[in-house]
């Protein structure tokens, strides 16, 4: 197995140019929204709106103002699949189409996926969607095809400000710590890393440097695996079956043939 690879996205230097979105769409040959007849969202410069089957990179624009609107701040963040070390999508996929690659990334094999959409609900980050052209669930592959031949992913290649960094997880963590130190020195004390350690789903292979709460960026503060529900759900199912069974036994107990 090759070394675990991933992204470190430093949101503090993102300028919202969406070059990553374009590069991703071009390389992966993703179709346009609504046949190219897009509409404006009215939500800042964000007309992509969300990550889904045909948007594998999504630049979020978060406008923050003080109550009197004299102060303002614009947060930009290029969102992508987190390639979780413990991945919810991989866990629930009933066809085995979702695999973990030799680069420790999570890839949906489009020729095996049958479009059941279980993974869409299982992803704690809302990353996956159906690509209407293929009829299958799709998301970022961390450019598995490019990595196979030693190239970096298209988005990281296109990013003009090095907001998107690609490399081995070990190198990226060093890079992130160095950047954190730099920001601390300049007085940006709100900066922190999201998903860089194992406490979050075993670690996110695509982790972020953020300067506000995760919720502000539309990220879950405490993402969980869908399997956390399995035991309780199984117990309640059995309890339900027993109750229904007992009720039916008792209600049919005294019935004669006449009233059937």
């Amino acid at each position, binding site marked *: 197995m090759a070394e675990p690879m991933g992204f470190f996205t430093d949101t503090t230097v993102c300028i919202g140019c969406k070059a990553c979105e374009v590069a991703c769409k071009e390389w992966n040959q993703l179709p346009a929204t609504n046949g190219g007849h897009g509409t404006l969202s009215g939500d800042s410069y964000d007309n992509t709106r969300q990550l889904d089957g045909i948007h594998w990179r999504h630049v979020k624009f978060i406008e923050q103002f003080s109550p009197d609107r004299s102060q303002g701040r614009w947060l930009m963040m290029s969102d992508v699949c987190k390639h979780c070390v413990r991945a919810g999508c991989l866990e629930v996929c009933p066809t*085995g189409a979702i695999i973990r690659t030799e680069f420790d990334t999570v890839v949906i094999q489009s020729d095996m996926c*049958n479009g059941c959409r279980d993974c869409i*609900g299982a992803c704690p980050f809302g990353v996956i969607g159906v690509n209407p052209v293929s009829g299958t669930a799709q998301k970022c592959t961390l450019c598995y095809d490019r990595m196979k031949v030693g190239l970096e992913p298209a988005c990281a290649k296109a990013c003009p400000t090095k907001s998107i960094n690609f490399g081995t997880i070990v190198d990226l963590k060093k890079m992130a710590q160095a950047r954190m130190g730099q920001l601390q020195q300049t007085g940006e004390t709100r900066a922190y890393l999201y998903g860089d350690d194992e406490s979050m789903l075993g670690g996110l292979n695509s982790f972020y440097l953020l300067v506000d709460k995760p919720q502000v960026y539309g990220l879950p503060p405490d993402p969980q695996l869908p399997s956390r529900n399995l035991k309780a759900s199984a117990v309640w199912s059995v309890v339900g079956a027993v109750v*229904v069974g007992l009720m*039916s036994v008792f209600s049919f107990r005294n019935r004669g043939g006449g009233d059937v």
Partner: protein
Amino acid sequence: MSSTFFTAAPHWRWLIVAYFFLGGLAGGSYFLATLMDLFGKSEDRPLVRLAYLIAFPAVCVCGLLLTVDLGRPERFWHMLVQAQTFRPMIKAYSPMSIGSWALLLFSGCAFLSFVAVLAERGWLPWPPLAAGSPGRPFSG
């Protein structure tokens, strides 16, 4: 704040709603029929037969609804067979994988019970199975 607010909806719409209704109907019918079959009196027999006759067609429609709802319906078998190795595809920790197998096994049982009722009533064209007296009306 719950982490679930950040997930996307899988867009399981009325096909899946209808599946749950019919699946419940099939499962409930079969469950009650089995209880009456095992513990009931002979008067219960018509109801047992009726429930078995409902369960199998209902579960057939269930399978159709689930298949049609897939993004790629022709690949429905990928739920049961690994499409590259052709080995059985079972994940004990994936509810949908378990559900697919449960549905398959239940369909098999429901089919056998359905055929048994047909044979009991003598509605089967195949003589060895048609043990009952043919043409007798379905009555209590």
